[in-house]
């Protein structure tokens, strides 16, 4: 039951007017009765309707009126009448008819068609002659013309004389009259509306508290209108972080707390950093065009790394001084200079291992974009983010690596079940993949990890173990926030962004 005190004075006025006027009252009548403006009445009606105190029947009123052409004919007569008139006395040629009756081409065609159908004219030897029926027609009443005259001002159907109504379809077809529709609201009280009616009385209450009211202290002897605090309020489109980027921010905080330093590398890379330094043989299937995006006209400059390039050539061919047998193939330095879009974030780690400010022991991470020519589906995109990290130090072992992966699965991805699966990457040994169980999807791979091979670290002058991982952070976001399609992370959908719920934040 609605609390009468929460009703606005506008609503009360409308209710009281209904009480007096009875049921099925139009807006217009309400406006007259209450002396409220149209806006005010409409607002009051909407509010009352939302509260279930009134219901509204909408009646559509159709008004007929002459079109512009119709108005013209109302004045000068229908074309067919004008046509008949000029041949009333004697037959005439087409040309003369058009000229004397002042018809344009369309009018002439319409008129001659109509008159032939009605047997009002005969055409012989290029002359048009009026028939007896035509004469009769000419001198009888032209209902259509009468109706047009009638409709020079809009009229409801019941306002049109009954005898003229039969001409309506004909004139509409000719585009001479048209219909205006007007919606008329009729207001009725609902059962509840009737119930509270006795309690409705207008009293002066404070609606909106204004600075004036505070200053003139008029609030002291007036009541405040009670608000319906359960009424819906409009939504606010607030400014907020993109859901995935907020997740990244949180992850960065966590990694900083674990003692990781952030590192960064370029999106447009050279094959040298993306592949060669990672002991990925140049004829390796993962280096083919279906696995790496190549940049057009892309030969980069490796002159700064000449000595290292020579070393890497040897590492690939026979292992150099790493204790490895190498890959046994002719290394092509030109291929090292290929410009590509990095296919993983590992080159960022490699650049860090090469840099002068590298700390041993050290922990480093980056969260950044990588590119692969993949077909897009719910768990594959052609560009996506990886969270990359390395820890280097004399005492670092495979167990620490598993510890890091477990932390990512449980604490970052929020999963309940995980497993470690042997993997294969040319640059790590042992290599491991992290698999997690995602509700509704089953086991999915989150990414790869391992201990960098000596063929990777020794040419860079690193002699301590380096554990490294590159995980699909988008997949961790999906498991954490029950997002079941990776495409949403790069969402173009503003509604999704506005309505994203942080249930597991």
């Amino acid at each position: 039951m609605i609390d009468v005190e929460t009703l606005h004075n506008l609503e009360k006025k409308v209710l009281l007017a209904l009480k007096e006027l009875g049921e099925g009252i139009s807006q217009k009548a309400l406006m007259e009765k209450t002396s409220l403006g149209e806006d005010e009445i409409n607002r009051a009606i909407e509010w009352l309707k939302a509260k279930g105190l009134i219901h509204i029947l909408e009646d559509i009123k159709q008004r007929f009126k002459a079109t512009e052409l119709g108005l013209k004919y109302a004045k000068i007569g229908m074309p067919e009448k004008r046509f008949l008139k000029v041949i009333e006395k004697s037959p005439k040629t087409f040309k003369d008819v058009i000229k004397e009756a002042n018809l344009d081409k369309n009018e002439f065609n319409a008129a001659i068609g109509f008159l032939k159908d009605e047997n009002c004219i005969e055409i012989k030897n290029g002359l048009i002659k009026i028939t007896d029926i035509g004469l009769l027609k000419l001198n009888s009443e032209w209902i259509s013309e009468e109706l047009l005259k009638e409709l020079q001002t809009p009229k409801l159907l019941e306002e049109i004389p009954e005898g003229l109504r039969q001409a309506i379809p004909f004139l509409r077809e000719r585009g001479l009259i048209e219909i205006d529709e007007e919606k008329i609201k009729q207001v009725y009280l609902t059962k509840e509306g009737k119930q509270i009616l006795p309690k409705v009385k207008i009293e002066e209450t404070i609606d909106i508290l204004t600075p004036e009211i505070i200053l003139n202290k008029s609030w002291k002897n007036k009541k405040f209108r009670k608000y319906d605090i359960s009424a819906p309020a409009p939504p606010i489109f607030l400014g907020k972080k993109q859901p995935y980027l907020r997740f990244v921010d949180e992850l960065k905080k966590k990694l900083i707390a674990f003692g990781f330093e952030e590192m960064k590398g370029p999106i447009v890379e050279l094959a040298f950093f993306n592949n060669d330094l990672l002991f990925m043989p140049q004829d390796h299937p993962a280096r083919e065009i279906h696995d790496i995006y190549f940049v057009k006209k892309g030969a980069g400059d490796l002159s700064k790394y000449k000595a290292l390039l020579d070393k890497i050539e040897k590492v690939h061919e026979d292992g150099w001084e790493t204790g490895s047998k190498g890959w046994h193939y002719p290394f092509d330095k030109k291929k090292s200079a290929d410009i590509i879009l990095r296919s993983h974030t590992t080159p960022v780690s490699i650049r860090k291992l090469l840099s002068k400010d590298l700390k041993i022991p050290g922990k480093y991470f980056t969260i950044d974009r990588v590119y692969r020519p993949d077909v897009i589906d719910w768990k594959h995109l052609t560009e996506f983010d990886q969270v990359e990290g390395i820890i280097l130090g004399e005492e670092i072992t495979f167990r620490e690596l598993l510890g890091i992966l477990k932390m990512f699965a449980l604490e970052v991805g929020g999963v309940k079940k995980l497993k470690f699966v042997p993997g294969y990457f040319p640059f790590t040994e042992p290599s491991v993949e992290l698999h997690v169980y995602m509700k509704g999807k089953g086991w999915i791979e989150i990414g790869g990890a391992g201990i960098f091979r000596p063929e990777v670290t020794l040419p860079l002058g690193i002699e301590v173990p380096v554990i490294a991982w590159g995980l699909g952070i988008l997949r961790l976001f999906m498991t954490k926030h029950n997002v079941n399609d990776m495409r949403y992370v790069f969402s173009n959908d503003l509604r999704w962004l506005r309505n994203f719920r942080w249930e597991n934040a």
Partner: protein
Amino acid sequence: MPKIEVSKKDLMNLTGIKISFAKLKDILLEYLKADVEDVKGDILTIKLEDTNRPDLWCVEGIARALRVLLGKGSKHYNVKPSGITIEVDKKLKNIRPYIACGIIKNVKITDDILKSIIQYQEKLGGTYGRKRAKAALGVYDFDKIKGKRLHYKAAKPNSIKFTPLDFNEELPLNEVLKKHPKGIEYAHLLKDKKYYPVILDSDGKVLSMPPIINSNEAGKVTLDTKNLFVEVTGTDFQTVMNMLNLFVMAIAERGGKLYSVRIKYNYPAECGFEVSPKFLPTPFNIKPSHVNKMLGLGLTLTEIKKLLRKMDYKILRADSVNDIISLEIPFYRKDVMHAVDIIEDIAIAYGYNNIAPIEPRISTKGKLLPETNKHDLIRELMIGMGFQEVFSFTLTSKDVLFDKMNTKGKCIEIMNPMSRNYSVLRNSILPILMNFLKKNKTVEFPQKIFELGPIILPDEKSYNKAKQLTNLCVVIAHSKANFTEIKSVLETLMKNLGKEIKLKHAKHKSFIYGRCGEIILNGKAIGIIGEIHPKVLENFDLENPVVAFEINVDEL
């Protein structure tokens, strides 16, 4: 990575041990880096992650590994000399120098075997042989090869004719490259060569034209074939030898007797005889202390030995005092390049999931990059002004970057795009956000969005011909959006960052002239601001005014 189809029944028969499907799946995943991707009745599609373990790319190889893992021990393969020699033409030195051959007699060819032979041949030549460039393999009906002295010869392109497989007319070698489907597919491997490789029997009959196609007569294997001749040619000696070993061993898994062939080389530096197949294990020493240091485990010598045997390594000597295990790497494991490969095998045999994870014990000080802190501050200010952050792809199309924006410009283009929609790197964020508005035409207004992220510009002077910048782009769309509104946002942001900027009228075809300005900081243009031109709005199918600015935040 290779994918193969195997019959589960065939696999179980070859393994000789019955295990459940679930157990099979687990073993494949946890020990062999292999995943069952699909099951159709008896046929399993298995994906093999390890591109470096061609010994596992056939049902026979998987069965061999399973047998060892399940404790049935490894198999010994006897090879007898066949008395056949193949002589290598020294002109092949710079064409396709190496060959290896083997013979398997008394093979009972069934549908399963035939399927497996074809599939394994394809995987070996395709992946391990790098699309036949490094090595490729041919199989023949041994009974159709005449004599004991075969020849691997360099022949002039139009000097010899033969009938290639599945053809019924003889063609000269250069015609085979033009007419046979395999000839067309692999012609590039013989491009610009003066001679083409051919294999001839004692009668001088062409057996094949490696690495292109076999002859239709000897080079065809059917259910009636009893004895097989196998040949591998290629550019790398080890790969050629190993490919032959792997293939004949796989067939020998099903019975049949192996015979070797002598190969006579006449190259100046490598003169003499070689024999194939040759199943020689590689001796290797590892340090137990290295194993434990790397894995973080405290395995005893006995434990390590047991784990090594599970992976088919043979222990020659183990000595804890001198910290050494001498072992033999099985001949089929050419992927083992370093001790670390063996250590991984020990870890796999131990079971990755049996190793207790620990948190890293070293303590270091964490920190963000200074630019990340700056970016976060800017994002925070934008959000404070009521803007929704968005996150977009950096790959886009020239149509979005230039045509729709009514501009011209340069960007980094991809040589091998998957689709036109993702064929270039964005050189600006604004077009991407305009596209965003287009996709959200029916969503409630006002729409206020921003993105802070990378853009990439071509830069001939840079080592990678590119320059990566971080831009901030801010966009407002609603029925009354105007220049003053966006300028307020820009100035409020800059004031909060302690920067004083000036605006200077600019001509930019994406914006309305007179309502567009360059953003100047310390005399340098760092961005652009203005009302988007109605023509651009039309191109993006937008019906509300849009105002925007984009700046390079690296300059702030």
